[in-house]
């Protein structure tokens, strides 16, 4: 089964991660510092990296920036609530997802599964024309979206937003990543415009837009399209 690299300086959290992850059949390699993590990475590449941002010999972000764009190993950042800014920086720097401490084992496993799935999907050639996530069926060439079998009419921008989210179901996409996918490489802050389009999209695909089931908001970070799990 897959090997995971855990970069975390707190021995207690490492102990919990070791117990929980080996219990689910993963092989664990541990590193308490950036230096140890680099040494482990030089030895063998893991399938997923769990990365704490505050490490004794530096910021976990530097490790992340060293990995991108040469490698696509999924990186899940471990951080505390109230550090939304750090999460956004990490995600924009190429992290795949984040877990807010404290987190439960279920949440941890779900994120790792999503990360592994994306890592697999990345290897298999061009992106699919047809996307199926939850009740959504997206036909990219025909620009058609059905929700639970019903055709929904989306504006081109709403369509692009949905496609970007559906390409990586379960994974959080930051405002900046979404804006780049929709408008290209733009420098201005378009988070407000983006919010308005997402709100419009939600009204078309969610039965109760103020209590979304699929297109959920991660406050201060971005959006996530939940799959079936």
């Amino acid at each position: 089964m897959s090997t995971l690299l855990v970069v975390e300086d707190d021995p207690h959290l490492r102990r919990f991660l070791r117990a929980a992850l080996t219990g689910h059949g993963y092989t664990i390699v541990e590193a308490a510092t950036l230096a140890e993590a680099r040494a482990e990475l030089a030895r063998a590449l893991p399938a997923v990296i769990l990365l704490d941002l505050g490490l004794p010999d530096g910021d976990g972000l530097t490790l992340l920036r060293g990995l991108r764009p040469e490698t696509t190993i999924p990186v899940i950042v471990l951080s505390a609530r109230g550090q939304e800014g750090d999460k956004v920086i990490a995600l924009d720097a190429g992290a795949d997802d984040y877990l807010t401490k404290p987190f439960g084992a279920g949440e941890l496993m779900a994120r790792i599964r999503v990360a592994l799935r994306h890592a697999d999907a990345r290897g298999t050639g061009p992106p699919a024309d047809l996307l199926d996530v939850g009740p959504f069926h997206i036909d990219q060439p025909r620009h058609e979206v059905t929700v639970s079998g019903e055709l929904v009419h989306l504006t081109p921008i709403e369509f692009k937003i949905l496609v970007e989210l559906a390409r990586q179901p379960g994974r959080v996409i930051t405002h900046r990543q979404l804006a780049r996918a929709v408008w290209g490489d733009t420098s201005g802050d378009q988070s407000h415009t983006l919010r308005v389009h997402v709100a419009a999209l939600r009204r078309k695909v969610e039965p109760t837009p103020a209590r979304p089931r699929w297109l959920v908001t991660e406050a201060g970070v971005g959006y996530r399209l939940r799959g079936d799990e």
Partner: protein
Amino acid sequence: MAEPPRLDLLVCVGPSPTSERLIRETHRMAAAEASTWSAATVEVTNAPPLAARDREQLESHLRLVESLGGEVHRLHGAAVPEVLLAHARAHGVTRIVAGKPTHGRWRDRLGGSLLDTLIRGSGSIEVHVLAPLATAPALAIAHQRDTRRGWRAYALAIGGVAIVTGLGLATFDALSLADLTMLYLIAIAAGSLFGRGPSLVAASLSVAAYDFCFVAPRFTFAVSGVRQLLTFFVMFGCGIAISTLTVRLRRQERNAIVRERRTAALLAFTREVGSALTEPDVAAVTARHLEDAFDIAAAVLVPHATEGLVAAAGLGALAEREVAVARWAFDHQEVAGHETATLADARALCVPILDGDRALGVLALQGQPTVTFDRDARHFIDAIARQAALALAHVRLVAEAKEAALRATTEELRSSLLSAVSHDLRTPLAVITGAATTLRDREAELDPAARGELLASIVDDARRLERVLGNLLQLTRVETGFRPTCELVPAEEVVGAALTRLESAIGEWRVDLDVAPDLALWIDPVLFEQVLINLVENALKHGGAPLAIAARRSGDRVELDVADRGPGLPPDATRLFDKFVRASTATAPGVGLGLAVVRAIVTAHGGEVAALANPGGGALFRVTLPVRSA
């Protein structure tokens, strides 16, 4: 990915003293609209080199540009306008600031006006032309204008006498000597209106001309009788008397104008400095008013904890020596520098800002070396210094009071935190420790139901701990001066995000939603999510199903309601928002921080929160926020 730096404003700099004002004005314009600016000077090829004094002036202007944070471009070319425009186009300049010429028109007729060519060739670039002195004439340099006007006065006095003499010669046969005396008196009176000097010139010339041309023997300066001497004496006397009166009147008039202008300037300054809230504001207002009043560079220096005296505003090109003068003025609480008893050769005049026996800072004024500050100007500067002292003392008091209040809040928070840690945090820890050790030590003896119970209590109380800590963290952040970073967020999205995070806690509870679809809130999305989470958790804990969340616009406010159908509010509902207050201690665990956090965050957003009775039973918490559009 940032846009390439655009240089919006370009100021043309030369050796003329007007340039200094152009630079300051451009700097001010750029600062007011947060655009960029630069300065350019053009050296014309084939033109005679500048005089040493002009070159020095030009360099000091360029230094001023750099000290104000502007970029300096030295250009070369055959004609100033063409070179300037080419440079402006190349750098995306949108506006050029130039000075009105101070020389007469004849030079333009000869060489073609620089401004005309500049404006004609500017195309889409705007050209701003600033007059040499747009504001009220400076108080300090009024005397320069008097002397210039003087030459014209002498010419007029001489001309008047010449006209009278001509008139007398033409009509000599028809007039008596007494009539001629009258005519000369008119000329002397007219000359006297221009001041003492022209009056004496007019009187002397009149006496001479009268004697030479009309008094017998004519065309000699010989005087033939006492009557003539008397006439001369009367002419001189009249001249002196009238001119003395004129001079006195004029001086009074000028003093009145200066005083009036000074009073108005002081009034404007007092009004503006009174509304300044911080030390840099006070310093900026003071420096600006001094610069406007005297058309020179002014700076306000205040003591800094580590770096000694530093300029808090209006940083001109203050050299080290000038700072040393300011230091002396500050330490000795006396005026120093330019034209004073101490360090008179310095270019800057430094006036300490005194509050009682304590120096709060120093005003430094620095202009061309020729600028002098007369008695009136010094009085004005002293008055400004006194007002600045009052304002500085006031903002310091306010800052100290604010700091004290913050310290008190922090202190209060610390003590409540201690009580919370010692009492409320230990309870869930006790549960977790107890349950976990039981599981570890007696796993074999436990039946599956008991084991499930213990595991559930570990999970529940760990979550409870996390909630308490999260709330404490938010409360500490908001109450110790943390400023929310607000954005315009759809109300649906905030409500949705909070409900998503509470999914497992809400479980099967019914939640009725009535959120206006196009309603947007001006909020910090992360902080405000906590408001909704805490209100909903509060309703889940103390209220009853179903919950109702509503958001609507009401006039210039946005109302956000979280209501339940539970037992309703306790009698002293306003205390609910205090820290560590619980509605019903017996039934629900928790430290009672949730609503305190709600109030702290809502207050930081400029809003209010109220606990109301839900019509039809239960409690209703209403958050009211001001509306703001993007």
